[in-house]
Each structure stands twice: as structure tokens, then as C-alpha cells.
């Protein structure tokens, strides 16, 4: 795990102070909640679907190198080219070079978290290539110069007033009507699709047996990005592969409902290689870039490898009370929420807070929602254990020491009770101490005469009055 100076607590506190953003986020989370209630919560066979999806993902991890080699052979047989990249810089370099070698000036991009991970847009910009995000949410944040705040709904934190202001400033088009703003974006991006020299997309699932890249979307921008330009580059992290189309079907049974509450997205596309003999459109060149960036190391870690089963549905984010409160940007890394709290610190070029695993209430809503059967609480617990090898705070050690001795434990409580039963003096003197922080929004009932001291009399009373009422 890489050391990091990023402070999630500070970023979270700042985010919580922004009432407008909190209101937008709350509204979005509310919508997602309704979608979940209608879809996965109402699905009678969710458990069975999850069992199948989990089996597929476990099989992937067990056979990962074979699957990737088969995938490579299948893509190649279909007229595509496969590139392996060890880390973010080399992946970005590989794609940039590919494009500059072919004199590409304009790239249209479908949403891809991996492309965020490798900083592709920045690399392309440095090389003088215009890269336009075509997913409406990504387009909005690109115009705003921001980063995505959710893995599926990148502009979840942006209000319609903010979009209106943005379109006015950057596109010279004024409107506060959402359908009209969508039309404005459509017109603006259409020109790009049709003129682009290359399209870069992500990959939801890669099928080894057929060399197929499967992408899910509602807008149609990925289809356009992969179909119109003469070059298609698909970017995936190495764990996204499954064996066969039947395996992919198992994942597709659970991914759209968990992600957006849909049975199927509007566009489910299966791209296999380059255009065939006699075809007039579709890419002449198709490239698949497979990124490691620390994942092979995660696979070698028996206690943490199950995070690689993730299918990027976003369900864990949506149900996490921490994510719901602070939004995605506070995490300071590409992947926020529970899955991000596990994955981000483990990636090679990890951004964000190395101590992110501690920012968790252990509520287990994530594990309950995860369609891939990932036990985030257990993974986070293991990460906390490893981080604690570097030392634990004095309060925890002191409390543990006290707890080893019943008379010391009781004695300490008695002292505290006589000196400051409501803990108000401690809170007053040290407002930033654990006690001080706890009491900021709470009225503490106070340390009490211990239960064990009351028990003897209570037991006598109970035995005198008999057992049953």
C-alpha cells in the first residue's frame, strides 16, 4: 500500500459543510433508492442470480491468466490487437502513441473508470489530441473541469442550474429545461462523433472464448464512439474477463438491476474485433488494452483478492451511509465508496487516503447489496489490521490494557464517574479529544452506578417474586 498525505476526514468535513452539494447528493441518493426498491429489492430470484454471478467471478479469478491468453487469441483472430500495460503511465503512453502514430487529432470517449485511473485525458491533451467525453454526465464534468463523483453517474453531484450555467458559459447555449439541455449536448457532441478519428471506450465484460468486449449504456454514445470512427480502442482492467457468453449472461442478469434498476440497458453492445471483409463501417482497427496497475499483486493476496470480483455496479456506493453523506469527491481517488476503500489503496498508483479503511461504520450494507458476493467489511477489517501493524493510538492501547484487569477497569470507571460523570469537563478542556468530538452533537447520559453493583439486590427481588409474570 502506498503512503498518502490525502486526508479523507478533512475532505469529508468540507463536503459536509457544502449544503447545496449535500442537497443535490441527497436527492440523487433518494432516486437511486427508489430504483433499487423497484428492481433488486423486488426481484424474487436475486439470491439465485447472485449465486451464479459469484460462481462466474470466482471462476475468473481462479483461471485468470488462462482466460486472458484465450481472450488475446480470440481478439487477434477477430482482427483486433491486444496490448498489456503494467501500470497507469505505460497504459496512457501505449494509447497515446497508438493514436499519434496514426495522426489522430480527435478522440471521442465513452465512460471508462479505467481511463480515469490512467489519466488518459491528460496524457492525450499533452500530446495535442482533443479527447471529448461523450457520456452526458462525463461531458458535463469535463466542461466543468471536474472529476467524476460516482462510478456510474459521474455528474450526480451537479444540479440542473449548474449545468445550465455551464452550457451557457462554455457552449453559448442557454436553457434550464433538462430535455432541452440534453438536446444541446446531443447536437454539440454529434459533430464530434461524426468527425472523430478514433473512439476510446471502456469494457464492462470481456468474453475470452469469443474475444468480445461487452459495453452497457443508455445513451448510445459508446455505440457511436465504437462504430463511427475508423479506430476503436477498448480499455479494460485485467479482472473484467469471463470465460464464455453464458458466463457473461450470468453477470448481465445482475449487473443492470444492481446498477441502474433496469433489466437491460438501452444499448447492450458486443464488439468483436475489427470490421469484417465486405463491411462498410465499423473500425478498421480494433485495439484492446489490458491494464494491471497492481491487480496481479492483489490476486496473489488470498485475504484481499475477492475485491477483484467487483463488476462495477455501484450498489455498494449507493447504500453506504458514508458515501451518501459526503459524495464521491471526498475520497480523492477514482473509485469511491466501499469498493473504492478497498481497491484504491491497493492499486499501484493509489490516490486517496491510505487510512480510508478506517472511515467505515461497519454497517455491512455494502456486503448485503453486492451482487458479486464481496464481503467489504471483512476486506476492510484485514486492511485495518495491516495498517495497525504500524502502530495504534494510545487510547485504544490503554483501554485494552485496562480491560485485561477487571478491578482496574472498574476502578478507572469509578474514578471517571466521581470526577466527571457527564464527561463534560473533559469535553470542555479538550474539545478535540475523542470524548470532546463525541459530545459535540450528543448529550451524554453520564457514567452510572455499575450494573454489577445493582445485580445482587435485583436478583434477590426477582427470586422472591418468582419467575413468571
Amino acid at each position: 500500500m502506498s503512503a498518502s498525505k490525502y486526508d479523507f476526514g478533512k475532505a469529508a468535513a468540507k463536503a459536509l459543510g457544502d449544503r447545496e452539494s449535500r442537497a443535490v447528493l441527497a436527492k440523487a441518493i433518494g432516486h437511486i433508492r427508489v430504483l433499487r426498491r423497484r428492481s433488486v429489492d423486488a426481484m424474487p430470484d436475486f439470491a439465485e442470480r447472485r449465486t451464479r454471478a459469484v460462481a462466474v467471478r470466482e471462476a475468473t479469478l481462479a483461471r485468470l491468466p488462462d482466460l486472458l491468453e484465450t481472450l488475446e487469441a480470440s481478439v487477434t483472430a477477430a482482427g483486433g490487437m491486444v496490448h498489456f500495460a503494467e501500470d497507469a503511465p505505460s497504459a496512457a503512453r501505449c494509447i497515446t502513441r497508438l493514436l499519434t502514430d496514426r495522426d489522430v487529432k480527435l478522440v471521442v470517449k465513452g465512460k471508462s473508470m479505467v481511463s480515469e485511473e490512467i489519466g488518459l485525458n491528460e496524457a492525450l491533451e499533452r500530446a495535442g489530441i482533443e479527447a471529448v467525453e461523450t457520456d452526458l454526465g462525463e461531458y458535463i464534468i469535463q466542461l466543468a473541469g471536474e472529476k467524476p463523483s460516482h462510478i456510474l453517474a459521474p455528474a450526480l453531484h451537479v444540479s440542473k442550474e449548474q449545468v445550465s450555467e455551464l452550457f451557457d458559459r462554455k457552449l453559448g447555449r442557454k436553457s434550464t429545461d433538462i430535455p432541452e439541455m440534453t438536446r444541446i449536448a446531443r447536437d454539440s457532441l454529434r459533430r464530434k462523433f461524426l468527425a472523430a478519428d478514433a473512439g476510446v471506450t471502456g469494457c464492462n465484460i470481456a468474453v475470452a472464448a469469443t474475444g468480445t468486449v461487452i459495453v452497457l449504456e443508455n445513451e448510445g454514445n459508446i455505440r457511436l464512439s465504437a462504430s463511427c470512427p475508423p479506430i476503436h480502442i477498448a480499455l479494460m482492467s485485467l479482472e473484467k474477463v469471463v470465460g464464455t457468453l453464458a458466463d457473461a449472461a450470468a453477470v448481465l442478469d445482475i449487473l443492470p438491476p444492481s446498477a441502474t434498476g433496469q433489466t437491460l440497458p438501452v444499448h447492450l453492445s458486443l464488439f468483436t474485433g475489427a470490421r469484417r471483409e465486405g463491411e462498410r463501417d465499423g473500425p478498421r482497427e480494433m485495439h484492446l488494452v489490458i491494464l494491471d496497475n497492481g491487480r496481479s499483486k492483489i490476486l496473489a493476496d488470498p485475504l484481499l483478492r475477492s475485491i477483484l470480483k467487483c463488476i462495477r455496479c455501484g450498489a455498494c456506493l449507493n447504500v453506504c451511509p458514508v458515501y451518501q453523506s459526503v459524495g464521491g469527491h471526498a475520497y480523492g481517488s477514482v473509485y469511491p465508496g466501499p469498493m473504492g476503500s478497498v481497491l484504491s489503496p491497493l492499486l499501484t498508483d493509489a490516490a486517496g487516503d491510505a487510512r480510508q479503511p478506517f472511515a467505515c461504520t461497519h454497517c455491512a450494507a455494502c456486503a448485503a447489496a453486492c451482487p458479486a458476493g464481496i464481503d467489504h467489511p471483512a476486506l476492510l477489517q484485514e486492511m485495518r489490521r495491516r495498517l495497525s501493524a504500524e502502530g495504534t493510538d494510545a487510547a485504544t492501547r490503554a483501554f485494552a490494557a485496562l480491560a485485561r484487569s477487571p478491578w482496574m477497569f472498574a476502578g478507572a470507571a469509578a474514578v471517571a464517574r466521581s470526577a466527571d460523570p457527564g464527561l463534560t469537563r473533559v469535553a470542555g478542556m479538550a474539545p478535540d479529544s475523542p470524548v470532546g468530538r463525541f459530545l459535540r452533537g450528543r448529550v451524554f447520559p453520564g457514567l452510572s452506578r455499575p450494573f454489577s453493583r445493582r445485580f445482587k439486590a435485583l436478583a434477590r427481588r426477582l427470586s422472591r417474586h418468582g419467575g413468571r409474570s
Partner: protein
Amino acid sequence: MEAFLFIPCLVEHVLPQVGEATAVVLSKVGVSPVLPKGQTCCGQFAYKRGRPDLVRPLARKFIALFEDARAIVCPSGSCTAMVRRYPGLFAEDDPWRARAEAVAARTFELGQYLVDELALTDVGARLPLRAVLHASCQTTRVLGAGEQTERLLAHVAGLTLVPLARPERCCGFGGAFSVDYPEISQAILEEKVDDVIQSGADAVITAEPSCLLNIGSALAKREVSVRPLHLAEVLAGGAI
């Protein structure tokens, strides 16, 4: 019939009424509560801070203390869940592991004990109130004992459970989380309290002492007159 009381440190020193209510409930159903001396803490605060090594000595003390019990009853889902983790703290060949397994198998959260072990759902309780149930994360999702709480409450005479918005949502305590990330903890707690107030209930019931403390102390701060009640207190309602 006897059962040993496993009293969380929070109950011992801050919420003794929960311990009293637990003893009363057991007595009501014909189980004599026994309180072994020398309990301190189950150690979950250290475990969740990433120090299972600090929990091992506490686990050994717990095991030694409760080994002779036929049943161990605890008014906390989180503490019960912690004891269920004790076996995993010891190596496969460590004799403490088998001892931990034996004790863990006999440790029950109150609702589990009544419903699963004694096959009881009606303990003759009466509490005429409109209340909401905050289904604690540890009791429902981690321990899997949420249903037992519901079934017991369904048989409390005069008790009307009204719907709580987002009942499965965390109260924001999370142990050390509340002091490590106080702003986030506060924000999550506020929403829970808002939901409780919005429900129009006179009381909020939970089976988890830490949730009870967290929600109760926030209600007190806001000077809202909704009564925070532990499951045990509800079930003891109407008793001597």
C-alpha cells in the same frame, strides 16, 4: 434453568437499565440470571481498530469466565457478534480455539435466545406506545438476528410499531468511527434522528446498546421527547 448474563461495558457503566431489564425478562420466562464477576469488555473496539492481538487476552478471560454456562445471554448484537469471532483469533492447533468455539456456540443475543433457544415469541409484555424500530446493523446484518426482534415486538400488548423511513440505515455510531470521523458520524446520526422524529413515534426501540446511546443522546441534544428504549426494556414492560 439458568443463563449467564454477558453485560457489555457500555451497559455496565452507562446504560445499566438495559442490564436490569434483561435480567427481568429472563426471570419472567423462568430463567434465573447469573452474573459472573469480572467482566470487562468484549474487545470489539480494538478488533475494529485492526488489533485482534489486543482482543486475544480479553477473549481468554471471557472464555474462562463463561465456560461453565449452559447459555450466555447478551443484550447486544455487536458484542455477541464479537464473541462469535473469538475462535478465529486463535490458531487451528491452539486449544483455546476449541474452547472459544464451545463458548461462542452458547452465546446469544437476547432476541436470539428467547426465540431460537426457548422457542418463545410472547413474553407477556405490555407497553402501550407508538414506536419505531431502529434495526441495528450489527443485530440484523452482521449477526442475522433482526427477525427475532421483530417477532418479539409483534407480541407486546399495546405496542404499535409505526414505519420508520430507511429503517435499515446505520445510525452513524460505528464505535471508533464516531470519534475518528465525528462530522460524518454526526451527519449520519442527524438523518436517523430526522427519520425518527418524522415518523411521529413516541419511542424508538433498538436491540443494540450503542445505537441506543447514540440515538438517545442525539434526541436529548435536540430536546426531543421521543423515548429511546432497548428491546429488553420493552419486553420487561408490564413486569414487576
